[in-house]
């Protein structure tokens, strides 16, 4: 049993940039759960794949720590975006898309509605729980933009609403989200 070490964010970043693996262990212990949560909110149906993504994310954090710029945001924000991007990349990969097709074909015929309600329950963790408090027309836009990784342009086309409206609604939704995070 070693003496528990705590770091300020400043110290932690410096230690990580010096390739201190004790600092990296601290980073993992403190942030793996939060990052795993966001990964699971994006990759909702495959825990094994989600843990693979988490592994990939931490290896990338270790590799790319040199490129982290403190003036642009907190370390957690930087890591959260790495986790989100990696999850969306996985979601859009061909192998994932194919595995989805294979899984869904037999189920959809009978369990369409049931499946949806089950998925909703599974989804209700972390940020998605806050999303429930938003108006539905706002919620769906945040869902598509943040958790599915669609661009504002793609969403405008999909939902057949002007790009300006998409932008405004997402901004308003995020402002509400901020209030709920209090």
């Amino acid at each position, binding site marked *: 049993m070693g003496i528990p070490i705590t770091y300020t964010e400043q110290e932690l970043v410096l230690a990580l940039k*010096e*390739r*201190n*693996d004790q600092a*990296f*262990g601290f980073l*993992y212990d*403190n*942030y*793996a*759960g*939060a990052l*795993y*949560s*966001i990964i*699971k909110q994006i990759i909702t149906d495959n*825990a094994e794949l989600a*843990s693979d993504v*988490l*592994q990939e994310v*931490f*290896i990338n954090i*270790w*590799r790319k720590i040199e490129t982290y710029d403190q*003036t*642009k*945001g*907190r370390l*957690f*924000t930087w890591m*959260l*975006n790495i986790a*989100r*991007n990696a999850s969306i990349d996985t979601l859009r990969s061909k192998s994932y898309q194919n595995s989805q097709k294979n899984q869904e074909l037999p189920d959809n015929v009978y369990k369409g509605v049931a499946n949806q309600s089950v998925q909703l329950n599974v989804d209700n*963790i*972390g*940020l998605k*729980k*806050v999303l429930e408090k938003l108006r539905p027309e706002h919620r769906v836009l945040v869902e598509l*933009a*943040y958790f599915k990784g669609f661009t*504002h342009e793609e969403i405008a086309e999909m939902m057949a609403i002007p790009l300006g409206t998409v932008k405004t609604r*997402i*901004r*308003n939704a*995020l*402002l509400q*989200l*901020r209030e709920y*995070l*209090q």
Partner: protein
Amino acid sequence: MNLQEYIASGIIESYVMGLASESERAEFEQLCTQYPELVAARRDFEERLEEYTSEHAVAPPPAVKVKVLAAIGDQQDPHPARSSNPPKIITMENSKSPVRSSAGLRFIAAASVILLVGMAWLYYQSNSQNKELSNTNDRLKEKLNSTDSILNQIVEEQKIVKDPNTTVVNMVGTQVAPHSSANIYWDSTSTSVFLVVKNMPKLPTDQQYQLWALIADKEGKAQPKDLGVFDATDEKVILKMKNTQKAQAFAITIEKKGGSHSPTLQKMQSLGKTLQSQ
């Protein structure tokens, strides 16, 4: 610009959550360098987001940490002060390429040995086959030569036998050797004399048969003329003897090896008279 309006537009949340466009990001980062209040507002949202997300953390499987630490342990740079990336790349290439090239070399070496052995075997195979063929060829040539010579003799014999000018003299055994018999083929135009032994006993090695032509002189006395020696082993093969123009009779005697100047008539084995004797 009105900072409060800018903050209230939702740009901070959009930026922090990664939903701002490229130009929005650039503008926001630029403004952050000018307005500490903007940075403070950003930090406020970042902290709220971090806090909320941490409160709703989901414990990952413990195996992930083991795998992550193992992966970064492999990449660990022993000299943290230096740039970590280039040595890593070199290490990976160094550890990969010798394996690949030595595997390749090993394959090539194995292939060459197999090829060499194969070629040696083929060479040995074709060489011994070649030798065998040439030996067979030699044996066949010998056989052909002897067969050819036998055939030539037979053809010669046939020619002489069938020639209308050839006189056949049947020589019969004398009282000393009643079973001895031979044929003389005598071509009176060419004066050639051929002998075919029919039955002549084998002689001791120091003795040979000798053929004589008996030619009458003016007083009617028979004078012997040597026509050459032969062995009993030449049985059934036609023998060319010395030529004679005249002969009232042919006689075969046993003489010492190489023949005599005058026949030992006590040992006359066979005698045949010709038409000239009448």
